[in-house]
Structures are given as C-alpha cells and as structure tokens.
C-alpha cells in the first residue's frame, strides 16, 4: 500500500460535478500582510476564478488554484472557501493565506585548490520583495590571492531583480542582472599539460562590469522562451612579456589588452516535461540558446555561441530511472575567454567557475591519455553523461525523497587552432545522493567533494 493515490484517478467518479454551482460575486483575500492582493487575485484569474465566473463545489480548478498559490513560494498554506453572497447561488470567494519567510539561500560553499587557498561565496534571493512578487537576489564570491605569479584576489558580485510577468502570470517577465568581476585567469607558461603547479602559470587581471536584461515568457506545453541583451565593459591587464613584441613566447589570452566591450543579444528555448524537477523519473528537459556578439551593440568581440543542453529520463523497474544528459556547444568567431567553454564547467571532477571566475589550475584527469589536459577554454565542447538513479527515500518526515545516483560519461573540448593529434576527450563521472527535503535540495556526491578541494 505504498503507492501514491494517483490510483485515485482510476476510481474517479463518472460525473465530476457534485454539489452546488456558484457564481463568484467578489474575491476576498485574507492573511496577506506582506503579499499584494493583486498578485494573488492574478493567480486566481489564471484559473478562471474571477468575479462573474461560475464554479462548481467540486471544480478541479479550486484545488489547482490552491497549489498554484502554494507553489509561488510565498505561503505556508492556502485555503479557498465560499461565503454567502447577495442571493442564493452567489458567493464571495475567500482565499486565506498563511505567509512564510521568502529569503532563499541558493548557494553557499567554501572551496580550495592548489592555486587558490580559499574562495567562497553565497547567492541569496528574496522571492517576494515588497510583497509584490519581485525576485531580488544578490551573489558574491571572494578569494584569497592565488599563488600564480601576478595574480590578484578575486571578487565577483551579482545583483538580480526579476519582476512578475507583466499583464498577469501568463505575461512577459522581465529581469535584470548586474555583474562586477575583478579577478585573474591563469595561462600556462611552462611544464607539462598535466602539471597544476601554480608557478608554471602566469596571471592576467580582468575587470568586467555590466548587465543582462532578459524578457521571458511561459508558453503552453511547458515551453519557456527568453530574449536578452547583454552589455559589459572589460578592462584587461595582460603580462606584456607574453604579448607580441615581448620577451617571451606569445600567449593567446583570449581577451583584448586594455579596454574593450562585450555586447550580445541572445534567445533561448526551454522545454521541460520532467516528472519531477528534483528527482525525475521520466520526461525531458531540453534547452537551446544562441548568443551573438556584434559590433552593432558596440562589442569588441564578434561571435555566435550556440548551446544545447538536454536531459532525457527513462523509467526503469522498481522505480529506478535512467537518465541521458547531452551537452553540446560551439562558438564561431572571437569570443572572450569568459564566454568560451571551460573545462571545469564540463568535467564533474574539476572546480567549476564561481560567478564566472576560475580559481584553479587543475587540468582534466586525462584517464584516456589524450591531449585533454591542455584544453581549458575552447570553442567547441560536448559531453554525454549516463546516470542511473535508485530511490532510497520516499515520504519519511522532513526528507520527502532521495535518490542514490551514479553517473558516468565522456567529454571533449577543442578549438579551431588545435592540432588534433589525439582526440581531446576524457571520462568523467559522479556518484552520491540527492535529497529533496523540507529545507531544500541537497546533493552530496564525490564530484562535490572533489570540485571543492581541488589538489
């Protein structure tokens, strides 16, 4: 008897209508000390629960509206009821809400590597700023001074504001993200590709300041479409001895010395049919984005970046799931290094960039003995991961669900100028547990440990 009441569908009443039919005369919201009434009324309107509308006592829209309001994340509980209206059959729709704290910690971690003793940060959001459903978020990352010659301590800041969709929940949502980065990137000057010794690298100093304006809209059938514009001012200080005319062999730093600008436009599609975003058992999520840097927007860098990211899940016996994760991307043109594909973002066993800043000199492990260890920032990247998940928790107190998972895959990176003597590919993988709990989503895995203590 552990199966959920989804079997209820099989036992449904032939006639879904039961009880009186009401005509809504007015909508009354109670319990919302912080959240704007109009925001709640707007969500009800999406379900057709507006003054003048008819609703049955057993109407499925009532339950859906309750859960839609709950899923906003602003309320601990929501209940709908009716009170007598001016005449028999006419009612006032009463919505009682119990508000909750809406400060969310999205990320919080410390990390260390051979090149940087410590970096860490946090990403925090207030999901219901001023009670208007405004998403106000801020993130930062700071580091100690990396051990690479000429390196500077890193600082990354993000400020994000997202307003509720204009014209109601089915309208267009707008968001603005401001960014400030001041950090170093590391380039090998000597030693073998597999040697992470910071002394064998030279550092640049790059400051970025700018922002992204994004418009997004949800369409039927779980399709989300975005369009965005990005503008950044970039200030790079590159080691002169490695530039043309310098005393050392030239290095392609993939960023212009001195002042430059990045201006791009982008479009994205996101199609999501997963059975559960945290612990999926079936369905898919496919995201495709195209970003173009152009001089029309004042950009010093002209390029087109295309990224495909897809996850596909297949039900297996005993509640297990098989997942296929496919990532592919290409850049045509001259993109700055921070917009290129980075090995740490692809290889689960390496530190990822934090707010776009890299703090590690660690190369890919190179399990296959290829040239992958020399690849850091590239124009082409691909990865295929196969993941098998086994449910280990369901409905035990504060832990709603948990999966043990093991993932294994192959990745590859390359740029146009690479001499592909051996295919720059490598193996990657991960295993651990993924928990969906009352206080959030936790992943505890070998890759998490490795990528946060990279030596």
């Amino acid at each position, binding site marked *: 008897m552990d199966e959920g009441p989804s079997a209820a569908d099989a036992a449904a009443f032939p006639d879904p209508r039961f009880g009186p039919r009401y005509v809504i005369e007015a909508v009354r919201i109670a319990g919302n000390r912080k959240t704007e009434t109009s925001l709640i009324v707007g969500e009800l309107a999406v379900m057709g629960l507006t003054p003048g509308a008819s609703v049955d006592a057993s109407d499925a829209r*009532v339950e859906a509206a309750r859960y839609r309001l709950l899923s906003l994340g602003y309320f601990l509980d929501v209940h709908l009821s009716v009170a007598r209206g001016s005449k028999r059959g006419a009612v006032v729709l009463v919505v009682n809400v119990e508000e909750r704290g809406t400060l969310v910690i999205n990320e919080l971690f410390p990390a260390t590597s051979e090149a940087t003793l410590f970096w860490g940060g946090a990403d925090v959001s207030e999901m219901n700023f001023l009670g208007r459903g405004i998403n106000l978020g801020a993130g930062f990352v700071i580091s100690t001074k990396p051990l690479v010659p000429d390196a500077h301590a890193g600082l990354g800041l993000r400020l994000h504001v997202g307003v509720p969709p204009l014209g109601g929940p089915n309208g267009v949502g707008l968001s603005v993200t401001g960014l400030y980065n001041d950090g170093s990137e590391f380039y090998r000057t000597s030693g073998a590709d597999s040697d992470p010794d910071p002394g064998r690298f030279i550092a640049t100093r790059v400051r970025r300041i700018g922002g992204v304006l994004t418009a997004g809209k949800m369409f039927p059938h779980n399709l989300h479409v975005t369009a965005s514009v990005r503008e950044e001012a970039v200030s790079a200080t590159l080691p002169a001895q490695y530039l043309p005319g310098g005393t050392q062999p030239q290095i392609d730093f993939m960023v212009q010395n001195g002042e430059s600008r990045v201006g791009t436009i982008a479009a994205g599609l996101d199609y999501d049919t997963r059975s559960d975003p945290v612990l999926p058992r079936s369905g898919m999520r496919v995201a495709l984005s195209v970003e173009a840097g152009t001089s029309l927007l004042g950009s010093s860098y002209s390029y087109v970046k295309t990224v495909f990211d897809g996850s596909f899940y297949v039900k297996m016996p005993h509640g297990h799931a098989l997942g296929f994760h496919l990532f592919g991307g290409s850049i045509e043109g001259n993109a700055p290094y921070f917009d290129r594909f980075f090995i740490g973002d692809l290889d689960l066993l390496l530190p990822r960039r934090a707010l776009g800043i890299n703090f590690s000199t660690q190369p890919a492990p190179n399990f296959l003995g290829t040239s992958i260890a020399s690849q850091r920032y590239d124009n082409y990247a691909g990865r295929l991961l196969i993941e098998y998940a086994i449910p280990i928790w369901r409905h035990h107190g504060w832990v709603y669900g948990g999966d043990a998972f093991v993932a294994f895959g192959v990745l590859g990176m390359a740029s146009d100028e690479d001499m592909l003597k051996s295919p720059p590919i490598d193996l990657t993988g991960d295993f651990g547990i993924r928990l969906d709990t009352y206080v959030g989503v936790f992943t505890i895995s070998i890759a998490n440990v490795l990528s946060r203590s990279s030596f």
Partner: protein
Amino acid sequence: MWCRRVAAAVVLASALAAAPTVARAADPAPLRAVGFAAKNGRLTVSVGLQDLFGEAERERLKSGFATRVLLRAALEEASTGEPVAVAVQRAEIVYDIWDEKFGVRTSDGLGVERRAVAPTADEAIWRAAVLFELPLVDMARLRPGTEYVLAVRGDLNPISEDLLIEVRRWLVQPARGQRRLGAGDSFFGSFVSIFVNPRIEDSERQVRFVSQPFVLGVVVPSPPPPTLPPPRPQPGRLR
C-alpha cells in the same frame, strides 16, 4: 595524486551519505482492529478512518468546496505480503452553505455511486471515511489455514498525478516566467539550495495501518462495525 584525491572524496562522500541512511528505515504501519465477517459468500471488512480528519480538516469541511477521501484496502498473505484482493472507496463531501447540510457521495470505484445528506460533520465523515461491511473477496478464494492481514491506507484530498507533476514543476520555478541566465555565470552544481519546501505530497493527510491477522475458519473476536455517530449539538446555533 588523483588516486589519493578520489579515495579521500569517496570516503567523505560515503560518510556523508551513510548518516541519513541509518535513519531511513521505514516506520512499520501501526496495528488497528478491523472487523471481518462473511456475508453472502464474501469476506467483508469494517473499520473507521475518521482520524483522517483533524480539527482543522473538520473546520474546512464547511468551505463550500468538495473534500475528497480515498480509502484503499488490500488483503495480503501475512507471510509473503502477496496481495489477494484490493478494494477502493472514494468519497466526496460538500457543505451547502445555504441549506447548512453536508452532501456525501461515495463510490466503490466500480461505477456504483451512493448519495446521502448528512446533517452533521460527524455523520458526513462517517459516511466518507468508514469502510462498512465492504465486500472484499469471495470466501472461496481464501485458503484455510493461511494467515491474512488487511493493509489499509486513507488519503484526504488526494492529488491527481498530472496535478502533482505540475505542482512539483511550479515549486522549483517559484518566480514563474523568470529564470536566470546561467552558463558559466552561476555557482554550478548545487551543494545546498536552502528554501522552505512546502510539504506537497500526493495528498493532504494520510492514515495507514494493518489489521490484526486472521485465519479462515479460526474464530477470532472482531470489533463490531463502526456505527453512525449520534447527533451532537451544533454550538452557537438554534436547533
């Protein structure tokens, strides 16, 4: 170098993973006395699940909208857990805010629908949340000498699978229509994402239990079937 890193990570990840594993053993379903009887050649069961309704749920019965109850009972062989028969009862309660009475309809999931009017919440709950002489299985299908138990689960306002999927998706995208651009520009790979995750399960409230074991042909005392509650005064109202 890599071997040492991986080994250390495996040890740490395993240690972290092991801690909650210790606590994951499922709680055994509690025991509840169930009335078994033979009627017209069929085994019938009687048991009440009125505890599906707490005080808050009882209050909300008067919301004017439907409250749904799903009761499922599975007869299993005690030794193997193999199901022998399954029965379902679904019910809806709607309070009429003008007539001030409860309408109740129940169904056994086979298309047979019964409707009743209940003057009190207690009676409405009784009609919806009690299995009363529910036919379960032909007696001929039961083997003498075999020990059986009845596993029962009750759900208050169960959510359909489609709605549950939609809700789970809404939950992870709380600010609908907004998503952050991310590639290379966010803390990838969440180690922790802390937020209060509303407890949205597949129903608002659940009750589970198993019956006392019984053996065909061996007379064991069963509790009498749950009876209709006596009417109780409605506070603050003229009668």
